[in-house]
């Protein structure tokens, strides 16, 4: 069972539907017991980093996630959920993340030419940087759907794929049992469903 961690941010309808579409049992839950019982975890998220990080801490689910991640259970963050896996974010101030991956979250503004719109909204082509079980069904140039104004930097040791948006933007990361997608696999058509499928086939780290 995949547990989609519900800590009060965002709409999880499409995420749950997309797992069902690939024949995986998925449950939207905030119950620590269900999260511990799950084979895999999804950390979703939309909105602002500070608010989401606070909600995760207030719910106590940050400690549950840390415990499960340390046990080697596969965990994937999506969009803001992916950003929270890093050490810190510079979205309106400086905020501490979960620190499961090395790197930090910086605004696109200032890193890309001014004529490009922020957020990056739309489909962009993946450039694969490192082989990973998460991308075993993904081909170079496959397009995925983005909506974001911030992205991860300094994450070379986990970088799996980038996209070109006036600069090289982190799209996909993974190290040991921890994975992240800046884009929305649940909104990226068959390419996205294949990434979710691959996640469901990843092994726990020991």
């Amino acid at each position, binding site marked *: 069972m995949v547990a989609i961690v519900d800590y009060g941010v965002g709409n999880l309808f*499409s995420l749950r539907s997309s797992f069902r579409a690939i024949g995986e049992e998925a449950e939207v839950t905030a119950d620590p017991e269900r999260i511990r019982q799950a084979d895999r975890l999804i950390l979703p998220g939309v909105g602002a980093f500070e608010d989401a990080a606070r909600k995760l801490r207030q719910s106590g689910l940050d400690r549950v996630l840390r415990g499960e991640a340390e046990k080697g259970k596969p965990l994937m963050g999506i969009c803001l959920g992916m950003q929270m896996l890093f050490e810190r974010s510079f979205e309106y101030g400086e905020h501490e993340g979960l620190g499961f991956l090395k790197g930090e979250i910086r605004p696109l503004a200032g890193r890309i030419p001014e004529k490009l*719109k922020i957020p990056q909204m*739309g489909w962009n082509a993946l450039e694969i940087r490192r082989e990973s079980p998460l991308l075993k069904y993904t081909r170079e140039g496959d397009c995925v759907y983005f909506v974001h104004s911030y992205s991860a930097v300094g994450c070379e040791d986990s970088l799996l794929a980038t*996209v070109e948006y006036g600069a090289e933007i982190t799209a996909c990361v993974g190290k040991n049992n921890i994975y992240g997608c800046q884009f929305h696999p649940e*909104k990226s058509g068959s390419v996205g469903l294949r990434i979710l499928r691959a996640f469901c086939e990843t092994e726990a780290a020991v």
Partner: protein
Amino acid sequence: MITKRIIPCLDVKNGRVVKGVNFMNLGDVASPVELAKYYSDHGADELVFYDITASAEGRTLFTDILTETAETVFIPLTVGGGINTTADFDRVLKCGADKVSVNSGAIRDPSLVGQAARLYGDQCVVLSVDVKRVDGVFRVFAKGGRENTGMEAIEWIRRCVGEGAGEVVVNSMDTDGVKQGFDLELLEKVCSVVHVPVIASGGAGRIADFITLFQELPGVDAGLAASIFHFGEVRIEDLKKEMQRNGIPARMV
């Protein structure tokens, strides 16, 4: 590089797609769910569902269909029609919509865009505008184009984007239905005042119209059309191939 998006628009009334559909191999051509799936499989980058139902029963039917679509189609889904309050936003977002488009609702209550942007984020709020030239001035029309509001369109769009609209659908009533190409003059003006994605609507009659749109106006992010896709006059796969051949970034499926 980010691709230019191609967006079919489905008008839904009492749970059925209107505006005639002419497809082979489609069991029920008026089923929004089947048509959405067809488009998603054949290269649409996003879908717009426009609810033109007036009755409460029709509304409920619409949200049921939306839910069913969002359970089977995994590309971004924008919903419009009858969005007057943040409660309407809530209603369609819960059924799986990713973005919500407001038109007359924002004209009636100009604070709606700002309220919704604060609640759901700018990326969720799409401003849709029906524009027509009246004595040489671009005017905003309300109620599906039946009523001239007297407001100047470019200023209205600038104001709504300032309030938090994360995307703008510009529908030119002058070119709509004429099939002689998009309204480049209007679109250029809009692109010059906003820095959020601009979606062109109204006027596409053939593939070349989309090529001209993206070549002439690099600031336009997407092209939207309805009947030319529904009647099979333009196949999205062919359109995407032609975009690629012309060096316009397109997502191939």
